[in-house]
């Protein structure tokens, strides 16, 4: 097959696969930059995907579905916030707890409401994000090089994919160019400095956690409203953990997150595409090796090129003023 065409197709697959990762990793960026670690990304995404699937089915409106996803995800974030910010509990334990509760609750509620074992009914097109076909996509398809890029790579994505990619510079802008971002980054490094500057550490961290909830909500909605047409139990399938890995891989920087997620997406797309493919010289490799390839390559890249990732200094520890 035309080599260039393959590249375009791989790239498009990469974009789709990395969309939820980008959103979830940016979500993690906001809380972790504020000093609240979050391994509950998985659970929040799952809860949001469920809410989106349910509400979108009931109302036949994607907007309602998306809002519900965000709402649920923010609520879960607030639980995490309450436990780890107000009650100064262990952030990791709280995240694990949320993953458990959501994994169970989505199935129970889904079964109770729809009787399909935790699945939500399949959504019709009106209950789902369609894809955006860019103008003239079909007309320019045959233009060499640029045509396929425009119509094959850029066109045909869900609005949430555009949103995800847009959120990268937006998140960067919020973190580095606004007062909120300045304070947020400061509270993740040295909460006492923020406190003595007359800013409430708690409220700031809560807002960071809410930002996380919003982005995780969009990530979840992407899964059930754009990538799929409805919710299936456990449909995050570990994406929250991969997003967390991407966040660390990216050393907690927005631009790097984009690259890390695209990399993970690409490795996945590559492994999918070349499963069972007879490679030159090597021949067919076992399916399992192809499936492990993204993870193996990640480890190699991490060891070879990335170097030390230094987390926000105050990350993981509750802010305690008086011992």
């Amino acid at each position, binding site marked *: 097959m035309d080599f260039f065409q393959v590249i375009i197709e791989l790239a498009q697959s990469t974009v789709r696969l990395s969309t939820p990762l980008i959103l979830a990793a940016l979500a993690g960026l906001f809380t972790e930059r504020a000093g609240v670690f979050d*391994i509950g990304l998985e659970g929040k995404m799952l809860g949001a995907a469920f809410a989106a699937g349910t509400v979108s089915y009931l109302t036949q409106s994607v907007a309602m579905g998306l809002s519900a996803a965000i709402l649920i995800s923010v609520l879960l974030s607030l*639980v995490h916030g*309450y*436990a*780890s910010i107000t*009650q*100064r*509990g*262990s*952030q*990791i*334990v*709280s995240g*694990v*707890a*949320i*993953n*458990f*509760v*959501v*994994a*169970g*609750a989505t*199935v*129970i509620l889904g*079964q*109770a409401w729809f009787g399909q074992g*935790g699945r939500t009914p399949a959504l019709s097109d009106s209950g789902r994000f369609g894809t955006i076909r860019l103008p003239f996509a079909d007309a320019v398809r045959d233009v060499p090089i640029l045509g396929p890029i425009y119509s094959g790579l850029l066109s045909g994505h869900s609005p949430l994919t555009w949103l995800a990619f847009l959120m990268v510079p937006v998140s960067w802008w919020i973190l580095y160019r606004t007062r909120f971002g300045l304070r947020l980054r400061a509270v993740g490094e040295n909460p006492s400095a923020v406190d003595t500057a007359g800013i409430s550490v708690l409220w700031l961290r809560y807002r960071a956690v809410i930002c996380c909830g919003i982005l995780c909500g969009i990530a979840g909605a992407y899964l059930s409203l754009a990538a799929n047409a409805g919710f299936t139990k456990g449909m995050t399938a*570990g994406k929250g*953990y*991969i997003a*967390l*890995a991407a966040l*660390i*891989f990216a050393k907690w920087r927005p631009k790097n997150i984009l690259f890390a997620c695209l990399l993970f997406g690409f490795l996945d797309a590559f492994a999918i595409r070349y499963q069972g493919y007879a490679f030159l010289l090597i021949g067919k490799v*076992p399916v*399992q*090796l192809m*499936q*492990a390839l993204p*993870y*193996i390559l*990640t*480890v190699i890249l*991490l*060891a*070879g090129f*990335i*170097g*030390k*990732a230094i987390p926000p200094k105050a990350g993981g*520890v*509750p802010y*305690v003023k*008086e*011992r």
Partner: protein
Amino acid sequence: MSVPYAKLPAWAEYGLIPLVNLAVAFLISGLVVLIVGESPLQAAYHMVNGAFGRGEYIGFTLYYTTTFIFTGLAVAVAFHCGLFNIGGEGQAYIGGIGVTLACLAFDHTLPWYLLFPIAIAGAAFFGALWALIPGWLQAKRGSHIVITTIMFNFIAASLMNYLLNKVFKPLGSMSLETRTFEAGGQLPKLDWLMNIFGLSVGTAPFNISFLLALVAAFGVWVLIWRTKLGYEMRTMGHSPAAARYAGIKESRIIIITMMISGGLAGMMALNPIMGEQFRMQLDFVQGAGFVGIAVALMGRSHPAGIIPAALLFGMLYQGGAEISFEMPSISRDMIVIIQGLVILFAGALEHMFRPAITRIILGLSPKTRDVAATKGA
């Protein structure tokens, strides 16, 4: 982790507060049960009775406890050195290779008590091996242990899938599992232990690896608080700069710690493989590695806390199964919610009732310990 409030007497700190937290966790779970339209009291009865009501039930509870002690200890050991090992799942999975190889090779020829030590060594060796690489990468290349251990969980799953398919599975068998081990590969149950208490273990797979888990817990306590190595691990965990100053070799300690952690996780494989199924199956770890994180943190990374925390989860697993046997409208997913709530209230929200309890207790006892600001040097 620093305790943000005044010091309480030990009975309150380690007895009352956890109990209150648990009570609240179960109260909230009771609400969930109520929502499903079942009686929370009855569910509570089945939970407790199902976990402890009979020798057999206790046997099952302790069977799960055994698993969680191993994975909990694995997380805790790494934690003391400042490493967050979320790779227990993969390390336990790979540890299964060691147990399986030992059993496949010797189950015909050796009695269990000779094979067990070989299997322990095999489990620990393979588990340690799987942790060695992330440990080495962290020590030498600065690769973040959280990412590498996540990745190694996935890689372990692929590797085991391949091995079970292509190496271990007898030809013509449907399931991805090894053949069933002969007598040498089957650990004896602890019926004598239960008999001491006048109980019978029945069919529960409560086996000798429970004792190994207790020994491991004691060993971890000795290691962390009574050996030079443990001292160095803790120094490293609290302050890498102080460790360097003290002449502690950073990479060496990180690698050794990860290997011990992985070895403990690997030993978890003994319990299901040699103690229950007598063969290695696909995905036999079934999330125990992740539960280990909660167990370790709720047990404050101390064996004396990890054992009760593991027991708590053992109880949730076994009692939860009984609930869903007895109350068909409460499914296994409901049990997952209850587990989550317990982790949330007894783990993450453990300080919620501390101020109130402190006030009550300090209010009751005369305020004699009003200490003056410490006198200067």
